[in-house]
């Protein structure tokens, strides 16, 4: 009972009305990004928004439904990746509960955790769909590179393993930027508005810290991957 109650906490009328809008934001921005041919996805901004404002369960639901809708409306290739979308919402939600959505650099860290989660969750899916892992290092990398679901060519030959952290950190920062642009009164309507009580502090400082952290984290992930490659 307590568990169900803690899930229910995420959901009030505002949450229920927000979720379709968040899904629409995911899809529309995701598509604008394709139109502008930017090398990122940015298709989870709405998910992270819901996760921060309403909680991990609402975030997970938003991610899952968003994935399903994307599959129905745009590209059914997306369907098998629904656990990734789910965890994006789920992890962001818990990070927000833990207080990691209150200033720029904390949000960057959240983005990084989400990126790791996305990579971890998507690998088994890619493996199941596109081939088994053998002891040979090369097929492991290929399997990992395929986790973004992109074409074989790109996956094998491009530097996609940098995209996930960049994408997810950027998504988190954008979601945070949106929250900053909403009035406190509006935010207070949502079940977990305390998650986003923005910590004051020099904006420039925080942005600089966020940038530094983002770069550091990306370098770390690139290094790790190079090690696996080697």
């Amino acid at each position, binding site marked *: 009972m307590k568990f169900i109650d803690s899930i229910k906490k995420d*959901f009030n*009328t*505002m949450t*229920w*009305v*927000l*979720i*379709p*809008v968040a*899904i*629409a*934001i995911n*899809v*529309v*921005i995701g*598509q*604008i*990004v394709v*139109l*502008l*041919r*930017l090398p990122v996805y940015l298709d989870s*901004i709405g998910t992270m928004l819901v996760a921060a404002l309403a909680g991990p369960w609402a975030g997970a*639901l938003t991610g899952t*439904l968003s994935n399903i*809708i994307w599959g*129905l*409306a745009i590209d*059914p*290739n997306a*369907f098998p990746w629904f656990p990734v979308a789910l965890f994006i919402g789920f992890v962001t939600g818990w990070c927000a509960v833990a207080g990691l959505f209150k200033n720029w650099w904390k949000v960057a860290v959240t983005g990084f955790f989400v990126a790791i989660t996305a990579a971890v969750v998507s690998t088994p899916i890619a493996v*199941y*769909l*596109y*081939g*088994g892992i*053998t002891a040979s290092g*090369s*097929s492991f990398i*290929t*399997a990992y590179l*395929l986790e973004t679901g992109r074409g*074989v060519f790109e996956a094998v030959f491009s530097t996609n393993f940098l995209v996930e952290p960049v994408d997810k950190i950027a998504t988190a920062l954008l979601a945070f930027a*949106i929250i900053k*642009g*909403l009035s406190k009164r*509006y935010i207070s*309507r949502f079940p977990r508005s305390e998650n986003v009580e923005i910590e004051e502090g020099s904006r420039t400082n925080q942005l600089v810290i966020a940038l530094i952290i983002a770069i550091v984290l990306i370098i770390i992930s690139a290094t790790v991957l190079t090690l696996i490659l080697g």
Partner: protein
Amino acid sequence: MTQQLTFYIDRDSQLHRLNPLTKIVLVFSFIIIAFTGPWYLLPAVLIVLAIIPLSFLGRIQKEYAAATRKLLLPVVGFLFVMQSLFHPDTGEILLKLWFLDISVGSLRYAFLTASRIFVMVSAFILLLLTTHPSVLMSDLTRRGLSGSFAYVITSTLQILPQMRAKASTIIDAQRSRGLDTEGGYRQRVRALLPLAGPLVFGSLVEVEERAIAIEARAFTSTQPKTYLTEIPDTPLDRTIRWSLVVLTILTVGSNLWL
């Protein structure tokens, strides 16, 4: 005109007349049978002997064929190729490409996986082509699904096309004001804000008023709900559902036996 986000084709057929739950049971039993069947050709047999005839029964065979061609075959085809190349090889090696091999074993596995996914997606397509989302959600709500959850599904299906239409308008308006959507990297990144900004904030502001509007219509009422339209559930429906459950159990059970 507002685009719709529904697959539903409005036609009268035996599939259309089935209760939505029956069709859902059909989808899930097909999935379970395809994924747990002990024979590697079972999913393919399901496709030929069940899925395709059902598309005719639903009088949506043309739309199903089109959906298959556009959505399904590329995915499944890609999957088949990938599995053939990357799945651990067993049996005779048939082909060598760089460091990748295709063997009988991997071909068989690829075929199995591809046809399983084909069954899964096809079953959903059949469901969606013959069931209006409103009716589907209404039936599930009657059977216990949360009304709020059903609300999210149906309203996403309408709000998304609305937002896309708005996005098109904003994109066109910005373009005519000189916004550069081609051009260099920085240009394109800069283009993101004026496109996405008004859209995102506008739609978020609506959320509060819409929440008030649905509360004013007793959205959070704890009264037992009633339903405007009747959705028939016939003895035939029940028979079909039970038969499918039995078949599913038999299939899963056959794994233990074999």
